[in-house]
């Protein structure tokens, strides 16, 4: 069993997939930035932003179901903003008596909460489209283009290259643990051993994983050395962005800026 299913990239031939990764990265960041800058409760602008990202999803051929399904993963964090509903000032929408206290639902608090949740949901969709329509090596090119230091980008690229191998390693460790442990039918059964014992087993697996990573990195280094590595990772110079791609970036940025102005005018 391999864990390649974890790679979020979905190969398609859509317009969005063919877009230059640098354009995509810049536009995704600009979209998220614009969304973050819009004030609370400007619902017409939020709907426009949602319309933009939904049309991008449709253009990208990824399917709304896939993107929205993944977007749910980021949702539990909404809990952190729930208290704001009850702590904001008047006007209150409802007062719920709870024994000797009353729980007040504030209108401003509710609006703020819904705005945070909605903006977060729109932003995560943009991030999903970026990751699902761009292979990671192309994202690395985009990272270099926005001047992320070369050493950091090479750590990113090495990490990505070995992530799936080490994840397979973890699967093997997990399988070995499972095959050496008894397991009762059904998941409600009491877990075996004391907490410290279970932690010791898992900790041993983590230590094992790290040592394997160390040893692997030694072999990788020797392989790199024998192919001429001298501490510098070289890559092909990036092609220049052509004028049509620049035009896309400028048009999209102007559009987002206008939306932002609109959100403050409302």
């Amino acid at each position, binding site marked *: 069993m391999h864990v390649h299913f974890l790679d*979020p990239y979905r190969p398609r031939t859509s317009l969005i997939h063919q877009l230059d990764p640098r354009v995509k990265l810049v536009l995704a960041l600009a979209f998220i930035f614009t969304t973050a800058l819009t004030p609370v409760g400007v619902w017409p602008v939020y709907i426009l932003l949602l319309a933009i990202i939904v049309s991008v999803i449709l253009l990208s051929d990824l399917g709304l179901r896939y993107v929205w399904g993944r977007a749910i993963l980021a949702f539990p964090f909404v809990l952190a903003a729930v208290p704001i509903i009850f702590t904001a000032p008047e006007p209150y929408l409802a007062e719920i008596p709870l024994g000797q206290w009353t729980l007040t639902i504030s209108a401003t608090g509710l609006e*703020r909460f819904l705005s945070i949740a909605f903006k*977060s949901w729109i932003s995560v969709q943009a991030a999903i489209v970026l990751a699902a329509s761009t292979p990671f090596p192309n994202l690395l090119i985009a990272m270099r283009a926005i001047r992320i230091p070369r050493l950091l980008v090479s750590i990113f690229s090495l990490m990505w290259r070995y992530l799936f191998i*080490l994840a397979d390693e973890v699967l093997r460790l997990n399988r070995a643990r499972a095959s050496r442990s008894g397991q009762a039918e059904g998941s409600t059964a009491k877990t075996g051993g004391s907490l410290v014992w279970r*932690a010791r087993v898992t900790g041993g697996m983590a230590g094992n*994983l790290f*040592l394997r990573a160390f040893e692997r*990195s030694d072999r990788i280094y020797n392989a790199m050395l024998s192919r001429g590595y001298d501490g510098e990772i070289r890559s092909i110079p990036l092609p220049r962005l052509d004028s049509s791609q620049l035009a896309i970036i400028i048009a999209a940025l102007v559009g987002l800026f206008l939306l932002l102005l609109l959100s403050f005018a409302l």
Partner: protein
Amino acid sequence: MLYSPEPMHIPDGFLSVFVSILLWIASIVVIAYALKRVSVDLDERKVPLMGVLAAAIFAGQMLNFTVIGGTSGHLMGAALATILLGPWAAVLVMTTVVGVQALIFQDGGLLVLGANIFNMGVIGVAVSYMAYETVRRLARGQRWGIFVGGFVAAWLSIEIAALAAGLELAISGTSPANIAIPAMAGIHALIGIGEGLITVFALAFVYAVRPDFLDAGKVKAVKGSLVWVTGLLIALALAIGSPLASAYPDGLEWVAEQQGFLDTAQGSLYEIFPDYVFPGVSNEALATIIAGILGTLLVFGIAFFIGRSRAGRSATS
């Protein structure tokens, strides 16, 4: 599996633009300095090592164990990376891990990535380093120092990073300070125990097989006093500052109002951080939690000071 949403990874939309950009700048400064230090201090062998170790930390999050009922503990890895690689390389490794989590698995947002890197990569590493070095020096080279130090480093790095995240949420006006901070601190005090146990037993395994990895850390410690002091300052500031902010939210409220003013320069009609009364939660319980955490952290702080001065004296004599 790889993307288990944790309360530590803040998504986009939950931090104000001001806080996000401020922490981006802070993270970029630290990363730039770490890059400089790593390329000066370390040999080129370390580049593949950092990449593969980042992959191992990422994959290591799939190693989990049942804590109680349905909850399970797994690894954040800042402490383990710091102990095995030294602080500067660990900053880069954690930056890579948190960056890929956000960019590929949407575990944490992109605009708030700077804040997440700061919490887990900068604060997590600095605090781990400070705690581990202190305990190890207190132990004067005895073996238990490695393990006790590993546990304290792992627990404290999780706890302090969580306090930072809670404070950031409160300053952004997303969650009231007197709820966000105790909640984050309480949840992560438990999560930190899982992290601490895994870290200790991972160190025990490494020590049994390759003790040279853990001894090599002693050489690195010589040049690390800047990190040590930073780690201590961050830990103390957050351990004392955030419960205070949580108990007396007026100061924070003022910050948030100023900032809310910046965010909505056009005079939108909302008040970002209202005068809250929170009727639903019994404040005595919260006060107890805060007092408990504050006390624990103060004790840690004092222990570290004593440890530091003792280590200094034994070095001179």
